[in-house]
């Protein structure tokens, strides 16, 4: 647009701007996508938000009860346990699968045949969370493989009730999930390490940096964009933890190992309290989105400042 034309457009009253001749047909192109997003994403969200303000058992019509579900949710000691466990999962997932993934990637970087070193860690990623749960239940049940092994080796811990006592059971399930998740993080960090330009690293080496100092001052900062993605995914994934816990303890005994995703599922489909389930779902959505925004905004701001 030339300067005089643009100026004329600004001077024209609103609504009299010249229309894009393709405006009508562009609606036709955009509409299917918009409609799809509206129907499969926005509508369920709006519906869930509405249900969270009602008492509803899945049959008949929901009855409006205001914020009763939210007050009941925060007053429920089981919900607070669930919230605590979810926090454990977030911290545990960042420390273990992400930390281990980084360790594996760094140790194998530059190694001849590094793929063979990383491959075994990646194999568990190919199986589903439920299968991971079943396998680890076999290992961790009372008198299971782990207890038998500890007993055979005369090591302490054979009498521990790995899946019965909280929060030990949550810790053990985080370890089981780490077994599955570390490999893919190692893969991502491996790609990150390969994409780091060699020149600054070589320059640092020439200046005398090596080992952990080289990693801390050079490699780690240059890996930051990828770390942001890996940690961001870990936070979102851990907030939604469901399958491993469902397969291993179903949130029990009692509610001692429940996570927010499990609380949402159980309240809705097991207890038929769709209103309370929707309230938990909404709460989970809000903290997931908030955590993602806060984390990404901070990380991206940091990387811009670099």
């Amino acid at each position, binding site marked *: 647009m030339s300067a005089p034309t643009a100026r004329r457009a600004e001077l024209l009253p609103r609504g009299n701007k010249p229309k894009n001749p393709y405006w009508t047909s562009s609606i036709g192109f955009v509409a299917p996508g918009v409609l799809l997003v509206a129907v*499969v994403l926005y509508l*369920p969200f709006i*519906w*869930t938000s509405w*249900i969270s303000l009602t008492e509803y*058992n*899945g*049959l*008949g019509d929901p009855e409006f009860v205001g914020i009763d579900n939210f007050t009941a949710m925060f007053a429920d000691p*089981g919900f607070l346990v669930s919230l605590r466990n979810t926090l454990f999962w977030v911290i545990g997932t960042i420390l273990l699968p992400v930390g281990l993934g980084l360790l594996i990637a760094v140790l194998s970087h530059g190694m001849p045949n590094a793929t063979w070193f990383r491959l075994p860690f990646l194999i568990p990623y190919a199986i589903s969370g439920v299968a991971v749960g079943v396998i680890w*239940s*076999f290992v961790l*049940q*009372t*008198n*299971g493989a782990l207890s038998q092994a500890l007993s055979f080796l005369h090591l302490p811990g054979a009498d521990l*009730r*790995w*899946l*019965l006592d909280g929060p030990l059971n949550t810790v053990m399930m985080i370890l089981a999930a780490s077994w599955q998740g570390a490999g893919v993080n190692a893969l991502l960090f491996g790609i990150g390490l390969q994409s780091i330009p060699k020149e600054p690293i070589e320059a640092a080496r020439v200046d005398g940096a090596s080992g952990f100092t080289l990693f801390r001052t050079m490699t780690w900062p240059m890996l930051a964009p990828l770390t942001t993605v890996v940690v961001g995914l870990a936070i979102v994934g851990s907030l939604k933890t469901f399958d491993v816990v469902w397969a291993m303890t*179903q949130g*029990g*005994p*009692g*509610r*001692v190992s429940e996570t927010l995703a499990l609380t949402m599922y159980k309240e809705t*489909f*097991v*207890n*038929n*309290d769709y209103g309370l389930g*929707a309230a938990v*779902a909404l709460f989970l959505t809000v903290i997931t989105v908030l955590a993602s925004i806060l984390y990404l905004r901070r990380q991206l701001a940091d990387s811009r400042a670099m």
Partner: protein
Amino acid sequence: MATAVLASAALALTACSGGGDGGGDPAETTLSFFTDKAAWESSFDDMNDASDGVAPQLDFTGYSDPTAYDAFIKQSFRTNERPDLFTWHTGDQLAELVDQGLVAETTDIWDEAIADGYVTEELAENYTYEGAQYCVPMNVVYWVMYYNTQVFEDNGLDVPTTWEEFIDVADTLVANGVTPLHQMNIIFEFVWFQAILAGLDPDAYDGLSDGSVSYTDPPVVEAMEIWHQMQSDGYFIDPGVETDPQVLLQSGDVAMAYFGTFFTGQLNDLDMVSGEDYGSFLLPAVDGDLPQTPVIVETGPLCVGADSDNEEAALAYSQWWMTTDAQSAWSESRGDVSFNPEATVTDEGLAEITTQATSDDSLQMRRYLEATPNEIYTVASEEFGAFVTNNDDPTGHLQAIQDAADAYWADNS
């Protein structure tokens, strides 16, 4: 929510492909049939053979996840394509469907079946809401004690006929280093509560289901104390052992397992032979002075969707389902008991259990899961699960359940 939308869509597609006709000969009709008992497909195939030419055929769709199934059925009632016939749960969950007018009334079918001796009036109570009946029983399950005959023989034990004898059996087994009883801290965590309380004070057990008895009342506390003592005495296997109960009974890791009669099928699947490898008996009442021995009965309904495409044909099927011919075929195919006392039960052990459970010496009582309103049951199952796991002071658990009961009965009395 997305699951629910998909489930509705799936049902709509299924129903569209099936096509329905409101009239015509019911025997020529094929009904859309949904159940959460996916593993029973072969038995329903056998029932299609049995109903050929006399009653409608079933187009079977089985779910293996009961929770997903329940959500699916509920969502289907929000569409125009309702299931013709489906399995459900008695108690609170059936009441919900009846309240919404979603299931067809079956009072006439029940009246006729009772008159023909196909079913007892006692069982009808599970299906009665405000004087009318809804659905028909798909099956009936008696909760009994299964035992490993070899373990009993090795320890010189006889089948106990009183609670004192039962405790003696358990004590002998403990003394000989055998774990007497199976127990779980999920799914069936409530069964020992029901067994002990029903056998101690059947009125108190009944009273819990309508709120007239509190969970902190003396008989309930006493029942929990008995359970607590049994756990302390080492009667039960560690609930952290996740091996299947039938495998534990077969291996002798537990000598006895308190289960519904569906357990027979699971034992037979391991090639265990009734009367040789395992036996069963009614658990003696804790209070030996009771005039009748309480027997816990569980029954699952077969329901007709109100205003479904083939409602009339589905009702005709329900009527046929209760007949002796149909039930004998069912019992033979499932290797299980039948609600119809006239039906032939081929397994001698089960036939004997049926005779005892339906005799005047027994008092049939509803299983705790179905007898308890869902909101109370939810809390109770969590509390019992924790109690089984930790064997701690029962008082706190009972108070937590009573708090849930107070909240429920305040809104629903």
